[in-house]
């Protein structure tokens, strides 16, 4: 095998590849047909999804089959996509923003980048779980929980109140994900419910008590499940939709005491971007998400709490009504910014 021969072959294929890629990209970067409703087969939609591809791609395929609309999806973190949308402004190719968290939607809405949704859609969701100004609609709920190592503890040894985690007995044993939007929503709720000083006290107490910092919820659950860390603050569905049957996992869940901040329920949601105002495809997609099919998908495939209709909650976890979630407006951007500033000042970010 002579190096020059191989190299030449590689160069040739690379050049071909460059041409191919350029061709593909020009084809796919054509602006989606939003102005004119063309023939049925031309209907397309561009979605930015802060929700994981593993979880929502099948749902989007279902929608494509049902509607005949061709959906292109960009997957990334919710906050990342929010930042990207702010950077893109009105030049964004996105028509719908599907977010893992209300805070990211609030950030985009605050810049005036979301349209107002029709009240037929937003009125379907209890006001506690959706935006107050109809800039986005809540889709599903996820409960804040403590995952614990069931080989070391029984459920009654795990605090139902997050304040007890500041006890020296938990020194170095608690994992948290400060960069995660759900954790931040949880701190926002704590600020709103218990006051700024108390929230700061909790964060400082966690840091002083040697809280272990993780990058993502999935990694924290994995560490608890492997016995590497004793307990971790996460959302219920990371556990409920685990790779293995969650009932058999070493990590088990403790739900917060009803009415306490530990019982918080976060929401996922969707909004239509301002440049796509009047797009029938975007509207149809959001309608599908709040339809019975869409909600059933979330219930059965991602183990989240449906927010619309009278569907039962996901298997293996307590029903939504029993959680005793506190009523907090999580969509206020100014509030989220203050939360992030506080977490940063404390030195957890």
């Amino acid at each position, binding site marked *: *095998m002579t*190096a*020059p021969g*191989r*190299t030449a072959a*590689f*160069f040739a294929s*690379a*050049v071909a590849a*460059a041409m*191919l*890629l*350029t061709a593909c*990209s020009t084809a*796919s*970067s054509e602006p989606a047909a939003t102005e004119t409703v063309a023939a049925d087969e031309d209907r397309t939609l561009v979605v930015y999804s802060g929700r*994981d591809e*593993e*979880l929502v791609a099948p749902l989007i395929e279902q929608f494509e089959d049902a509607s005949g609309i061709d959906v*292109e*999806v960009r*997957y*990334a*973190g919710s*906050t*990342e996509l*929010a*930042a*990207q949308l*702010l*950077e*893109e402004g009105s*030049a964004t*190719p996105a028509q719908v923003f599907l977010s893992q968290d209300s805070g990211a939607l609030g950030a985009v809405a605050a810049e005036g980048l979301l349209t107002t949704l029709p009240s037929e859609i937003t009125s379907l969701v209890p006001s506690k779980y959706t935006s107050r100004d109809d800039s986005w609609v809540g889709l599903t709920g996820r409960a804040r929980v403590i995952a614990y190592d069931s080989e070391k503890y029984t459920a009654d040894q795990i605090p139902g109140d997050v304040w007890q985690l500041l006890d020296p007995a938990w020194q170095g044993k608690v994992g948290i994900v*400060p*960069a995660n939007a759900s954790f*931040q929503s949880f701190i926002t709720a704590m600020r709103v419910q218990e006051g700024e000083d108390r929230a700061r006290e909790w964060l400082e107490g966690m840091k002083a008590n040697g809280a272990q*910092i993780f*990058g*993502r*919820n*999935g*990694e924290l*659950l*994995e*560490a608890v499940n*492997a*016995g*590497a860390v004793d307990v971790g603050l996460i959302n219920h569905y*990371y556990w409920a*939709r685990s*790779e293995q049957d969650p009932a058999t996992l070493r990590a088990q869940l403790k739900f917060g005491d009803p009415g306490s901040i530990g019982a918080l329920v976060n929401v996922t949601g969707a909004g239509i971007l301002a440049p796509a105002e009047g797009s029938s495809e975007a509207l149809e997609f959001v309608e599908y998400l709040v339809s019975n099919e869409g909600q059933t998908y979330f219930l059965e495939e991602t183990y989240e709490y449906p927010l619309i209709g009278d569907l039962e909650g996901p298997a293996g976890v307590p029903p939504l009504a029993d959680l005793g979630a506190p009523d907090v407006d999580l969509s206020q951007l100014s509030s*989220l*910014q203050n939360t*992030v*500033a506080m977490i*940063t*000042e404390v*030195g957890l*970010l």
Partner: protein
Amino acid sequence: MLAVVIAVIMLAPVAQLIVRALGSGGRHAAAILFRQRTLELFGNTLLLAVLVSAACLVLGVAIAVATVRVRLPFRPLWPVLACLPLAVPSFVGAFAWSSALPQLHGLGPLVIVTVLTTVPLVTVPTIGALALADHGLADVARTLGRSRSSAFFTVTLPQILPAAVTGTLLVALYTISDFGSPAILRYETLTTGVYALFSGGIDRSASAVTSLALVAFALVLVLGERRLRGDRAGADPGSVQRGQTARPLGTLSTLACGAGLGLVAALGVLAPLIAMTVRWLSSERFGSTMEDLAAATVTTLLLGAVAGTVTVVLALPIGVLAARYRSRLIALAESVSYLTHAIPGVVVALALVALSLALVPAAYQSAAALIAAYVVLCFSLAIGALRSAIARVPPRLEEVSRTLGHGPFFTWWRVTARTALPGIVAGWVLVATAVMKELPATLMLRPIGVDTLATELWSKTSIGAYGAAAPIGVLLVLVGLVPAMMLAATLYEGARR
């Protein structure tokens, strides 16, 4: 002129970063920069970079010497072992080790994983330098009564050190900008800090300010390397020595040598593959379809090949100039490219989002913008390899060609490029493998619907599907083996002649 243009392109993300950092006022920026958290992260990063660089320098030189200068059986095998770890992205190494031994976390394991996966960045250029080193001098030293080790340290080592130090710089820059493995092994650095600030906050000036601290760090590293390398970069390339033979050792020493080389490769490549295969078996849900995997593999290979080619073509002029004429401007262009290597991919990506929307909106989210990001991120990998390869082409060869009446282009193509080909291939492979492993910029800039193996693996781990992520990790390593073997082949050719 071209050097200036390229330097400007490379500097654009840094400029954008400064604009962003100062966007919310100098006082805010200073508050972020000098808070205790940033200093803490800076200290962590410094410690990590020093430990990894020192270990890679020593280990890399040792591996290179053992590979080239010791007569081991199965000669073609050893350069392959030296190159194999290039196929393992550091975050895949970290993922594999921590999924096998979940208790592993913190500085120690991170240093080991990073060293095991980045040491070829030192080994490869050092093998190249050793193959071309002037062994006549060492022989002279020997006849003058110097011991073998004394001759090595006083004569051979100074000849290969510039290459080893340049490789170590790449290791250090990679280490400070690496995100995946510190995140998985939970050791907080400036880069994980930038990520947390970026993904956790809408305040993008905070992550930009922290990135600038990283750039400053990189600047110190680049200047330090320049000092260390000094003027030796241009050291007499006129006397290329050929036909030098590897030294036979006793049976025991040979065994020890082979075992050592084998162990490094086994820990760096084989162990992660085994750990991931075991983990694979635990997977029950979220498995990838064959079509997804095939598409991601093809995309990964294409992006690596195209970005490698574009980068090498753009880097050639600077490599040539840097090797032949040490003007201040060229040195600047070269240094700038090192700086961008130290900026986390996500920061370059964000800067490019803003730049491409402002300058060429049509290119946004196109393959072209993604390739541009790769070029910015990996330019220094190509420059390093090209400069040292071209510096070793004796100018006398070119003069002879010119005296024979050949034009400058013909001379360059037939003499310079051909002689420096192993270095050019090495640069291409280094860029291609780095691109195939790249994650954060790919996530942000890829055209809609385009998945690479790295983004596939990332999406599995983000939902905690470690079992489903494992086969993708295995595939990512296997795909990386192709260029790694190519590199090994050119190294072997180079070391043999």
